[in-house]
């Protein structure tokens, strides 16, 4: 691996898992991990993590984690652009820890601020009976690997059920992408212009 001599670009992701909207559930926590291609490697920061358990307040139905994400990737190839995979867990009626949702999103390409709302889903049991026993025993179907949701292969054999939403905010900085001929460019909409320009100036100073 001749990484020392080869040119790479950097992608810095700051942000936070802001919270979630699971109308039916409470006391949830969230695991996240980044999934990326062969040509990517994290240089600093946490690749995966687990948040605190949060409960709903009496007057808001939002679950707030505000869990910071901070990671920098280096890469030679935009193929396999990092994806953030989140999976939410929480206790069920009997106190068993069960999964409440899986979801994934690509880390935004453009420098600047982004807010993503990820719809979450869980795999469905094959049989109604399994649904019942799963509920009873607190063992719902789970993905063998949460990273499955970041890939397309093999998904056709599963059936899923929607659950809720997780909101994530990202602040993206890139370095040397233009140098390598990749122009992701800032966002065009004028309402985001101010935010992006701020970031892109920072990006320039970076370079």
């Amino acid at each position, binding site marked *: *691996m*001749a*990484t020392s*001599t*080869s*040119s*790479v*670009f950097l992608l810095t992701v700051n942000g936070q898992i802001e919270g979630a909207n699971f109308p039916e559930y409470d006391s949830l926590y969230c695991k996240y991990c980044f999934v990326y291609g*062969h*040509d990517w*490697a994290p240089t600093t920061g946490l690749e995966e993590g687990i948040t605190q358990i949060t409960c709903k307040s009496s007057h808001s139905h939002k679950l707030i984690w505000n869990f910071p994400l901070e990671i920098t990737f280096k*890469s*030679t*190839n935009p*193929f396999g652009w990092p994806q953030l995979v989140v999976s939410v867990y929480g206790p069920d009626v009997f106190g068993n820890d069960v999964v409440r949702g899986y979801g994934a999103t690509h880390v935004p390409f453009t420098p600047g601020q982004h807010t993503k709302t990820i719809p979450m889903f869980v*795999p469905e*049991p*094959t*049989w109604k*009976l*399994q649904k019942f*026993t*799963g509920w009873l*025993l607190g*063992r719902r*179907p*789970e*993905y*063998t*690997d949460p*990273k*499955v949701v970041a890939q397309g*292969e*093999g*998904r*056709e*054999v*599963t059936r899923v059920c929607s659950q809720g939403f997780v909101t994530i905010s990202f602040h993206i900085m890139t370095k040397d992408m233009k140098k*390598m001929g990749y122009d992701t460019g800032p966002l065009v909409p004028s309402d985001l212009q101010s935010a992006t320009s701020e970031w892109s100036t920072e990006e320039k100073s970076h370079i």
Partner: protein
Amino acid sequence: MAQKQRRRERLLKQPTAQESHDDEEVSTIQHYSPNEASAERADDSLVFSRPPTGSRRGISLKAQHASTSQHLDDFMTQHFEEKLKAARSKVENLQQEEASAEPVSRLQSLRDRDTVTRFDRKVDPVRAKGHKASPARNTGVKFREAARQIAEGLPTTEEAYNFFTFNFEPDPPDETKRLDKKKQKQRERAEEDGDEDGEEEAEEQEDADAEEENQDENQNQDEEAPLVGNEEDLFVIGQSPQDFLEVRKAEYVRYRKRVQRDSELLFTPSFQTVPTSVKLPENMKPRYLEDEGLYVGERPPISVTNENILENRILKMKEGIKWFGDDGRIMALPDPIKESSTRPPLFHMEGDLDPALQTVYRKALKSKYANLYIGGAADPEGDYQLDVDVSGLIFSHHPLFSREHVLAARLAQLYDQYLTRQHNNLTGHLTDKLNGLRKALQNMVSVHGEQIITQAMQQRISEYSLEVRSTRQLRDAEQEKDRTLLKSIIKVWKEIKVLRDFQKFTNTPFKLYLRRENVDRASDEQQYEDEILSEVMELAAESEEAYQKKLAEYNKQLEEWKPWMKKQKIKKRKKKKKKGQTQDDTEEEDEKEGSESEGPFEEGPPRPVPPEKPDFGLIDQQVREKASRIRRKPGEAILIPELSASGSITASEFCPRTEVARRQDVSKRSLFIKILYNDKEVSRTDSRSLSTDFRVHFGQIFNLKILNCPQSINLQVFEEIGLSCSLLAQVFVPVPEPSVVTGNVPIEEFEFSSNQRVMFDHEGVGSDVPLSFEADGSNKLTLLTSGKLSSSVSWGIGEDDVPLAPPVSQQPGGIHSGLGRLDAVTYIGASGLYDMKKISEWATQSRMDPNDPKNASIMQLLKVASSGEVTAPEYFRLEHLQEEFNLVLDEKLEKSNRFRLLKLRSQEVAEFRNYKFVPAFDREVSNTVFQEYEKRLKDGEIIDTKEHLDSHRALVAKYLQKIRESVINRFLLAKHDYLLSDLVIEEEIPNIGILGINLFKLAEPKRPLKPQRKERKKVTAQNLSDGDIKLLINIIRAYDIPIRRPQSNKPGQSSQSAIQGSDWYLSQVQVRPFVEVSFQRSVLQTTTADGPNPSWNEELQLPFSAPNGDYSTASLQSVRDEVFINIFDEVIHEIGVNDKERGSSIHTQIEKHWLGSVKIPFSTIYSQSRIDGTFKVNTPAVLLGYSKERSHGNNGGYDMLRSLNEGAFITLFITIEPQLMPGESVREKIKEVKFDSQEDERLLQASGKFERDAALSYPDRPCITTVTDLNGKTVFITRYIQPLNPPQEFLDEFPNNPLEATTLVARFVSLLPSLPDQVLFSRACSLWSTCDQFLTLLAGDEEEHAVLLCNYFLSLGKKAWLIIGTAIPEGPTAYVLTHEQSRYLIWNPSSGQYYGQYDTFCPLQTVGCLVNADNVWFNIQEYASPMRMSFDITKANFWKPFFSRSFSHPGLSSVQPEELVYQRTNKVAASELQTRIENILKEKIMDWRRHQPTRWNRYCNSTLKRFLPKLELGGGQEVAEGHRLELQSQLGDYRITGFPLHMPFSEIQRIIEQVYSTGVHNIQTSKAEFALAVYVHPYPNNVLSVWVYLASLVRT
């Protein structure tokens, strides 16, 4: 007015907060004030001592208090109005009032109600006011007010006014003087009374007062009410201390008060009857329609209370009055509820309904055009009008055409073409251009003449000549067309003439005249010649150029070819020299040889062929030929055809009957045209009859007023014959642009045609019918009805010349801006670039400058195109702009290393499967990346003999590699097939039992006294990384470790002394063993224990890292590393005492001596997930310096058991932490993929069922009935068992000792190297090779060994079975069972060892099934351990046979060969190999001991070498101590440690590994010497047994 002024004064002093409010009130209420005031004054003096009389007032209180201040204001106005009315009516009567409490009848008088209302109203506001007012003032103010009132005696009108109008905020209740209260009450009463004069009113007041008296303490609101800041009165009375002193009671809100407070906030409509007067507009008497004789429907029944409540509520609302009808009641519709059902009863509700009556639901369809209104939908009047002008119709062919008509139509068509061509005069144009170009070229050449032509010049000249060439070609083509056109016109005319003569009548009026224009012959000829000359010149130049090019190419090739040629020659020559031929061969011969050598040597480039020189004569000839073909002959007159329709048509009388019939038919026909707009017929033309010249004139214009967006305009041509009409054709007319308006549109001709087949029996030629004009009927034509419809569609123009077209922006076509018109691509789209029409359209619209040189090419193109013949491109392209987007050429892309890398990675080529960081740029990809891969590709052919030492093995290795690759590819495919279980972990559907257990579990204690072992959580391997996985190795204890032999020079004694005297044991350390575990080059060791039966009980953790960091199941299964568990003896030597300075320090040296080892492959651990048991330590046959004799302690019975066995044992527990998911799922999937099979389907099903049943009832007992052979086909297992002959020499060796022969055979089998399938085929299912394949491949796993051994045993006449079971450490495996002399022997085929059935240390743990050639038996006994079970397969309750009476053996033939053919042993090769191994090992050992010299003791070497063949002969069994003694005697003063290693030969690497693991080379003493001997014993079929004798010698 005066009052008003005063108010104003006051207002100025009032708090600002109240100002605005006041102002508002002024206008509305003022006019009542005088009245009020007077009333107040009048009743001021009323007494208030009456006792409380009724609760009615209370109710009203509650009812009315809730309104807010705003409401109150509105309400007040109303209220006063009422009061005025009431005053006027002047009827007050107590009885009446009481009566009013009862439900009011419809006929009740208005007056009655009036009073009641007034009563209610009157009190309420006061109350409300009082409550509202109270809180605003503080005590001080109140006091002032009170004082003022005292002073004045009477409340002023202003006060009264204020009382009603102010809004006050709530204030904490406070206690004030009774006086104040009374005063206030008086005032209140005064106000109230002021409104009315009636006595009952007063009574009411008194009631209220009484109430208030009763609750005076609480009713503070009342006291505080009416105070407004009268600033002038502030200091009228001096304050007394009492004024400031407040005495409060403990706060307690009484119920009533709370009720009151609530009532302030809440509105509860009263349920008392509302007087009609309130409900009706002023001065209106209720009108009863019923009384007037009109029908009034029955009102729906409502309870009176509810109605009252509703009325009260509505009255409070704004504009509430409008809800009341003329009769003063709430408006109501008649009761809609009918007494009886009016719907007809439904019978047969279920099913019996007639299917015809069944309701059919259809989805609502949205009309396609429904919402497509043009322009603003809000403006439907925006008249848009489409004018459709249908002018006429000309048939170019009609079924009723006579033959003459056909020809005439063709003639007309050709003539038309001729005219247009003539008009365009393309030929002339091109000729001019050509001449111009030629001239320019000539000029250029002549001007520059012989001067040096610059590069640019040359460039231009070549450009010009290119241009000339293309122009000339174009011109030639045009000329040819002109010529052929003229020819065909003349031909058709001739045909017509012939036809007319033949049929003797004329049908068409056409006549063709040919005008002859004579030319000057001489000049014409000159011109012709010139033309030809110049053309010839040009062509010659061109061909010359081409020739030069070819020549250059040829030369280049020749250059390449020559050196190669030379090389060949040299080679040849060398050969000749070798052959001793003479050197003076002639050149010629060489040449010959060279050319000859091309054959065998081939490969070289073929000798290039020189190009041919162009032949000018030929060119001249060609040009002339062409000219005569396409051009007028020189001097020939120019012919100009002229077509006229002046001829006369023969009248019908003179025609034959068929023609007459045709003409009659023609006259019968008439045509009309339907106009369909958006697929709806909107109009149709009159029907016109077909004229004899097949033209129809309509000349009608239809004005379509349209609302919907135009989608299509369709003209349908109908033909009418008599009454029936048929659709001939339809013509779709494009929707015009908004700019196209009537008046400026030319009539366009739309061609149409129909493929209807029509045939006639008269002269009409019909349609879709072949016809021929030739006499012999050849050259048939098939004509279809076709024609041209001339019409136009445009947007209409209204009055005032306003175009009735939709606005431009509404049209999808109208969005082109000026910019778009400049760029052809944006205007017509990329696909239009090949559409000449569109281009020309664009060209005209963009007003291109035709003189702009930039546009020259396009203008010319258009000119050519507009002549009507659109030259379609000669190729077809799906995406014609793709080329623009091809960033690089394909070849370049292929060459790109980066791209190649990416491609290989995505193909999952082994080397690149996990390649990280493909560099971003091509230049950063180092070429070394591919080296390995390319080498491997190349190696596919070449066999690397170096690594394998043995050519046969190398071949086998290659073959294996190939099989492996194909299998891997198969699985790569299979890997991408996902099952649900691969993705989702899901609970199995529990059966009742599990449910019950689970329920039972709930009741189970949380921390049971005897906890059960829990299964460890399994981890899927995917999300792991380096260092996550550890190998846990628990070394528990070992038995019977060889003990040291005392170093003595008296060999004879040593063993004796060891045996004698237990004292000796105690004093002398027998052995200090420790265990060293090495795995993946990391080494860990236990502490040292004492004695031959040590107990360590230690856990060692070894890190594990997967190859390439790939922790997928696939790669884990293919890990080939082995865990070496070596037992060493720690020997401490004292090497002299060093006491030079002070004291004594003893230097000791620690040596470790290898005693034995156990090897466990990682793949076994991985697939087993844990390995637990006692293993036989693989000890060398001889351990120099150690004795294997068992300690003869008094261990009693246990010894007896072990006495059956030889050697040392070690107890181990090995597992992986965290527990990895073994790759079962993949294997299962392979079953899903299912290989094809030649077995009977029934058999396969039965076997599947058998296996499933077995797995269900005894999940831990392996059961195999079908296996996969090397070709990937499923084969039934019994086909593998067949008696096969072992090598004859084994049988010959021990002719009378069958047991010896048996062991020899077993040894032979065990010498076949074993290679687990999992390793071989990475995670593939077990593939079974047949015995001949096995012997050829010389590699296989336990199954192959077992099958071979079993087959040998069968041929030796034994009863033998294959055992499918599990063993340690192999896991699921196959053993061989033999039945001899009433006892069963279990053979381990990979080691050649056999065990009795009751052998404690038999590695076989479970017996799943037995297999022989006839049947498979599954073990259904209680136990599966061989010791506790019966092998009697005849017992049906112990063994379940596969083939039974119900499913008998179908007579499966064996897949094994009839007979095995063995190669003879090759002794030479073996001895060669032996030397090579020896050399390699010696080198290696020296290599490992890099920092010290390695001395080889030659004498010892040769001695050891002599021992080895003996060992082999002994079958690896321990031979007598003899040779140790021998050694000892020869090398008396050495301390020798050493041992022979024995292994089957497969790869050199394995031998090296094994030698390395013994650690002999680790001896650090400089005095150490080494001895190494290798012996390779050959067995038939290239099976080799390798012995390595290693020894270290230390001089004592």
